[in-house]
């Protein structure tokens, strides 16, 4: 229990640090933060009023306290460009990003772990000689480039899948859930999720393979062989179980890269998620929206990391009782 509490305190500390960096970063940006908001027709007096309205006339530490207080109340401010609350913009993008990330991760790790375990039993065969370099190459490829290749083959040449978006234009749904479980949504998510999965599967596959190779030499495996257990049973029940721990670690360490990498995948497939909101906010100099999107991405990341830490503590008692 004290382990969970320690991790929670740590998560809050990291969140506070990121929020502070975020605040300073956006205040240190060159130019007036209102440059994009104020148009030329406004008089000096109007501009001053807007500065007051956004609290930009106060000392920096007061702005910081107001900013923190607003965050606690879930108030992320108003988007300069879209003239609506930042939270409303983010709220509609968040589910799309979460679903995309989770389906990509699940596909990648299920496939990677199984294929890696299987590959460990094929040491020195042709399969190893072909699959290992391919796995390495997908890890080294730019994520968006994998997306471009899939898009060209499956959307433009074969026409099996739509080229972008999360739903067909004009479609209406009774609720968010009915939208997400529609066949149309499934068609749209296939290529971006596959891109993410292709990019991510290399790490669990290679890691699982190398840890399995180490474990297969250990004495308890020899013992199981002497006991006459089937090779399949030895691989899955005895070796794979012990090889999973480094994979969970890699999963946790990779979360940040995954969530961040979404930005480019969402751009390739015009996927209406947080990453695209961030990119368009930055290119429109929409400071509050960019700040909000960055904050939410960080928050999701910290939350996921917290849960992974807990699972890790359960899998390896040495961690939680250390």
């Amino acid at each position: 229990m004290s382990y969970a509490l320690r991790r929670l305190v740590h998560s809050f500390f990291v969140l506070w640090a990121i929020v502070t960096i975020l605040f300073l970063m956006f205040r240190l940006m060159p130019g007036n933060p209102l440059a994009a908001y104020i148009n030329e027709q406004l008089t000096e007096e109007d501009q001053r009023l807007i500065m007051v309205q956004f609290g930009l006339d106060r000392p920096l530490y007061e702005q910081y306290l107001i900013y923190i207080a607003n965050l606690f109340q879930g108030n992320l401010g108003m988007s300069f460009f879209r003239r609506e609350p930042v939270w409303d913009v983010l709220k509609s993008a968040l589910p799309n990003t979460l679903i995309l990330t989770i389906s990509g991760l699940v596909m990648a790790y299920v496939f990677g772990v199984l294929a890696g375990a299987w590959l460990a039993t094929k040491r020195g065969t042709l399969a190893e000689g072909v699959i290992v370099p391919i796995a390495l190459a997908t890890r080294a490829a730019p994520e968006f480039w994998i997306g471009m290749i899939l898009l060209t083959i499956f959307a433009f040449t074969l026409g099996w899948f739509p080229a972008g978006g999360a739903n067909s234009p004009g479609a209406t749904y009774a609720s968010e859930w009915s939208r997400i479980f529609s066949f149309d949504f499934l068609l749209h998510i296939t290529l971006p999720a596959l891109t993410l999965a292709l990019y991510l599967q290399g790490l669990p596959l290679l890691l699982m393979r190398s840890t399995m190779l180490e474990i297969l030499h250990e004495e308890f495996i020899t013992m199981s062989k002497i006991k006459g257990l089937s090779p399949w049973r030895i691989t899955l029940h005895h070796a794979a179980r012990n090889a999973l721990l480094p994979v969970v670690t890699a999963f946790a360490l990779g979360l940040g890269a995954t969530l961040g990498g979404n930005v480019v995948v969402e751009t390739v497939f015009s996927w209406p998620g947080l990453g695209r909101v961030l990119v368009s906010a930055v290119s429109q100099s929409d400071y509050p929206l960019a700040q909000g999107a960055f904050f939410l991405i960080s928050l999701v990341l910290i939350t996921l990391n917290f849960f992974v830490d807990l699972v890790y503590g359960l899998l390896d008692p040495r961690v939680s009782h250390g």
Partner: protein
Amino acid sequence: MANPAVLGRTAARSRSVFREGAARILRDPFSVAGLSIYLVLILIAIFADQLMTHDPTQILFRPNGRVANNQPPGGAFLLGTTNLGRDIYSQLVAGSRNALMVGLAAAISVAAIGTLIGLLSGYFGGKIDAFLMRLSDVALAIPFLPFVIVLSGFFRANTWNVVIAVALLLWPNTARVIRAQVLTVKERAYVEAARVTGASDMRILFTHVAPNILPLTFLYGSVAIGWAILTEAAVSFVGFGDPSRMSWGYMLQDAFVSQALSRGSWNWFLPPGICIILVVVAGFFLARGAEEVLFPKLRS
């Protein structure tokens, strides 16, 4: 005052470690492949001006006076042309310079910051260690690509911003491994001997401890090359790249927004991606070879 005999022995030891390591790296086919790719990249970057057949940004014309847009590979245009009649092969060659520069600058800064912090953290311990490790926790928790995009989007679009962002966020991995290594090295007898002879902390740190962790620095530096090139490509792709510089990421963005995908212009968007893969893979291969030298237990 350090004992010259101890010093001499340490120097000889680290020199032989290096020579043995270099020999082993050259015996590993993966490392040789990685080194060869780097060598080719460096040569192409140096002789880019001689290798280019056209000006990579110039709009080219056919003999009949019409713009040579969307030309297939072959003939005067080795890899064909873009939708605006620019030579793809020459862009690819010009992009190698950017890749080399970004990769090297990022690798050097990540390795330098990571090594310095790892050394200080591991050697001094206590409050310094606690502070630096909390700092690394925070750096690791920041979503990487969004941070780079915000930084290069709001400040002037500039290749150096990508390098700075990569250095700011990637040092913790290096620092942590080096810290762990320093913790074991500083307990060794020769460090103890140096301390007994009255060597200062700084002297012990930089003449006795640092040489033993340098191979790790190279290992993490070579991985950072790939990360920096991938990051620069991603930033260029979402449109915040340096407009004054030809890069492989810019080429991919150009192809994407110019509908090269729906036209099926494979000759445009395939080559830059393959170049990026080769350079990043080279880093992986070299790291793999270096790992086997550093951690002989892994050798099978």
